[in-house]
């Protein structure tokens, strides 16, 4: 019953979405109050229907309803309850329903939190989002329905959730990531609505910004979670592989970052209007492209969901319509959008322009590298690969100018600044960065040229943040007053840029100064690994909820002192018979130490891997700062808007009284 109900709710949502998609544009065009009101209500009710449908699927998992094919393929009676719930989005069909849920969630949010925005604009925005919803709900309903039944032979037990996904990371990573992916549809819809209206005033940028920033926050956290999860789950020291699916999430993030910066310039100075609109379209298009790449089977990836060319064609057609239509509207309407470009070569506008150009080129590079094997095959018939060696090199090259520019762009004046005084302000900070970096690199283990460059740049960005605070503070009579005067949105910028610096330092230091050793060790033995002594002191087999585990116990000493006690495991899962390694990681702010169990060897010894990873946590710590920065920036806008409205209301009542 419940699966049928879930399916029915999905159909209802589909029908409502069609009405929303079509009627919104009619209503906005004729400024028909009833239709515009309908749009808002429909958005909210579609979300409610999808939510209920999602709950039905969740209930099917909780109740172990193996008559539902999706449940039978991805769950099991022995699966702990929290994984039975997260299994809902563990594979293609369910994750698609999650996608739709989050899309309609954002749609409802826009409907609810847009009271001060002009009705025709919001109606168009909801219309665009409704249109996207039509496509995704249709895709789910007709090609990837999670409610399909397995009849008449209902399996006694399910195939179990892939053990790799039986983990906290799976519970949070997809929802966070989708909140970002899908969240960019809001600014996309704003861009289309603006283009259709034929004008984009600076209010448009002001309204779009918070929505974009929030989506960006989720995207940043989602990607960081994925990286962190891969690191501790796979246990071989890696945290990013430039796999097509990873790239599919990184490209919208890069474009989204450029978009945030472009929106800032458009709001404050009225420049880059058509570039901002194009970026808004591009960012969400990259999200859709990502959906296509991941679910069509066109590229090989460890993360791929579905390898079904039929589904692939459906997504491609949908992608073609949505992106094609938006780019067509852009081609037709973009000449109506006029920016007043009145800035010189040494100005914040130019700095932002270069920042965005660099980010756009990086996005292009990632896309090129990801698609190149396909392109190569189309032209020559040869099969080829593009992997980390390419991406790491190219990314590093382009990051250098971006990082150099960051502290300068933060502080340089809008419109025009003269070059000489600017350079003199910075040289001391630059020299200090190089010297401190040199010291750090030598302490870490020796001068690697790229490590020195990367560390210098990370410190340079940190210096830039400090310099900004000092410069602002020095403008006022006292330091504390000066600091207090820095608005929240500028704190947001500083904290986010700080996050970038932290991530850069983490990436560089861990990439060049990590240690990994594979050793043979018998129980009772102590083996030396660089400066550490590893003692294998115990071994036991135990039973888990749905697996059998073999766990080794290791004590790690440094210079005679015990630093940590680790218990890595190998687990054999009962249902799938899959074998997994669980590394035991001693996580620290400045280093991780961990051990991974390999194979038992013939002479009774074990092959194990010992890892020392300096500053690896900084990679994800940086993204937390980035998210915090975004949060600070968003909270500023809201506050000012309400304050402005209160002021306006006050002056209106005063004028009424006076008249």
């Amino acid at each position, binding site marked *: 019953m419940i699966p049928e109900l879930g399916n029915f709710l999905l159909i209802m949502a589909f029908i409502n979405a069609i009405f929303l998609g079509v009627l919104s544009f009619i209503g906005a065009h004729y400024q028909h109050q009833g239709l515009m009101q309908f749009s808002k209500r429909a958005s909210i009710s579609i979300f409610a229907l999808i939510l209920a449908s999602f709950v039905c699927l969740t209930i099917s998992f909780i109740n172990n309803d193996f008559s539902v094919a999706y449940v039978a393929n991805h769950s099991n009676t022995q699966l702990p309850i929290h994984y039975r719930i997260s299994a809902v989005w563990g594979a293609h069909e369910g994750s698609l329903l999650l996608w739709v849920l989050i899309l309609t969630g954002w749609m409802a949010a826009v409907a609810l939190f847009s009271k001060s925005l002009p009705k025709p604009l919001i109606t168009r925005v909801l219309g665009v989002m409704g249109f996207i919803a039509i496509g995704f709900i249709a895709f789910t309903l007709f090609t990837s329905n999670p409610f399909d039944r397995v009849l008449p032979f209902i399996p006694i037990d399910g195939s179990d959730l892939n053990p790799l996904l039986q983990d906290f990371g799976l519970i949070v990573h997809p929802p966070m990531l989708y909140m970002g992916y899908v969240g960019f549809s809001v600014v996309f819809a704003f861009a289309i609505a603006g283009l259709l209206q034929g004008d984009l005033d600076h209010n448009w940028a002001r309204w779009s910004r918070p929505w974009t920033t929030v989506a960006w926050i989720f995207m940043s956290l989602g990607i960081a979670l994925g990286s962190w999860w891969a690191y501790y789950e796979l246990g071989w020291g890696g945290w990013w592989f430039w796999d097509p699916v990873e790239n599919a999430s990184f490209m919208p993030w890069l474009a989204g970052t450029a978009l945030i910066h472009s929106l800032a310039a458009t709001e404050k100075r009225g420049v880059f209007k058509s570039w901002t609109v194009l970026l808004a379209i591009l960012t969400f298009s990259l999200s859709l492209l990502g959906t296509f790449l991941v679910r069509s089977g066109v590229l090989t990836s460890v993360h791929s969901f579905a390898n079904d060319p039929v589904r692939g064609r459906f997504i491609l057609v949908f992608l073609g319509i949505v992106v*094609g239509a938006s780019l067509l509207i852009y081609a037709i309407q973009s000449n109506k959008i006029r920016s007043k470009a009145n800035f010189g070569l040494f100005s914040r506008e130019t700095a932002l322009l270069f920042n965005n150009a660099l980010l756009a080129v990086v996005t292009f590079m990632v896309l090129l590298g990801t698609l190149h094997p396909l392109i190569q*095959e189309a032209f020559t018939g040869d099969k080829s690969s593009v992997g980390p060696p390419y991406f790491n090199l190219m990314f590093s090259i382009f990051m250098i100018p971006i990082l150099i520019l960051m502290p300068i762009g933060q502080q340089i004046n809008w419109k025009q600044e003269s070059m000489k005084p600017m350079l003199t302000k910075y040289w001391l900070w630059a020299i200090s960065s190089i010297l401190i970096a040199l010291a750090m690199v030598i302490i870490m283990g020796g001068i690697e040229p790229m490590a020195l460059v990367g560390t210098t740049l990370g410190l340079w960005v940190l210096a830039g943040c400090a310099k900004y605070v000092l410069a602002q503070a020095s403008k006022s009579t006292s330091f504390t007053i000066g600091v207090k005067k820095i608005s929240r949105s500028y704190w947001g910028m500083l904290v986010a840029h700080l996050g970038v610096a932290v991530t850069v330092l983490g990436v560089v230091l861990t990439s060049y100064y990590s240690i990994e050793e594979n050793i043979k060790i018998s129980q009772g033995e102590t083996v030396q690994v660089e400066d550490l002594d590893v003692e294998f002191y115990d071994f036991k087999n135990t039973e888990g909820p749905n697996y059998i585990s073999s766990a080794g116990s290791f004590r790690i000493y440094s210079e005679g002192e015990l630093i940590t006690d680790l218990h890595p495991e190998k687990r054999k899962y009962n249902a799938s018979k899959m074998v997994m390694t669980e590394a035991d990681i001693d996580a620290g702010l400045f280093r991780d130490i961990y051990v991974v169990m390999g194979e038992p060897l013939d002479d009774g010894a074990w092959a194990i891997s010992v890892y020392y990873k300096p500053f690896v946590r900084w990679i994800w710590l940086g993204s937390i700062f980035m998210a915090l920065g975004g949060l600070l920036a968003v909270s500023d806008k809201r506050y000012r808007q309400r304050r402005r409205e209160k002021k306006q209301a006050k002056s209106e009542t005063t004028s009424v009284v006076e008249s």
Partner: protein
Amino acid sequence: MNKKLVLAVAPIVTFIILVIFFWFALEKDPKKLNSNLIDKPVPDFKLSALKNPERVYTSESLPNELFLLNVWGTWCGPCHIEHPYLMKFSQQYPVPIVGVNYKDQTKDALEFLEKKGNPYSMVIADVDGQLGIDLGVYGAPETFVVDSDGKVRFRYVGVIDDRVWNSKILPVIEQVQGYPLEQVQKDAAENDSEGMK
């Protein structure tokens, strides 16, 4: 004015090209590799015969006519599925099939051939898999079409059933040798030139 037009239209034009490109890419299988051995001779090897460990095969031992080289193992499930087809083709067509027993236990392989029949004119025991690697094997079963000069002309990865034989293998054989392949009816025993019952 013209520059503005270009900037306005470039995105959609680029996108349309991309979509068309993807449409055709959907038909390709990203996991299938191309053989790097096409038009190159079969790599040199020095390995024992499966049945007689004292007998040594080299690339000189290979047939001087067009033949098929089939890489298989008893551990490989699809190879079990392919086997009856190979039996049939070896009897119906005058093309010899040379077997490369890849990364297998000789004992298991011999048992398998005894029980299920032997479609091979000779079987090379590639126990450590070096010949497989030199051939660029990545997923058994794999079958190579080798011409009378000893050059590899085609590789097929996967089970060869009737459909694959007729649509993929037969046309290649006929194209390589330049004339159509006639069916003959051979005795099952004629296949095995090494006299295995």
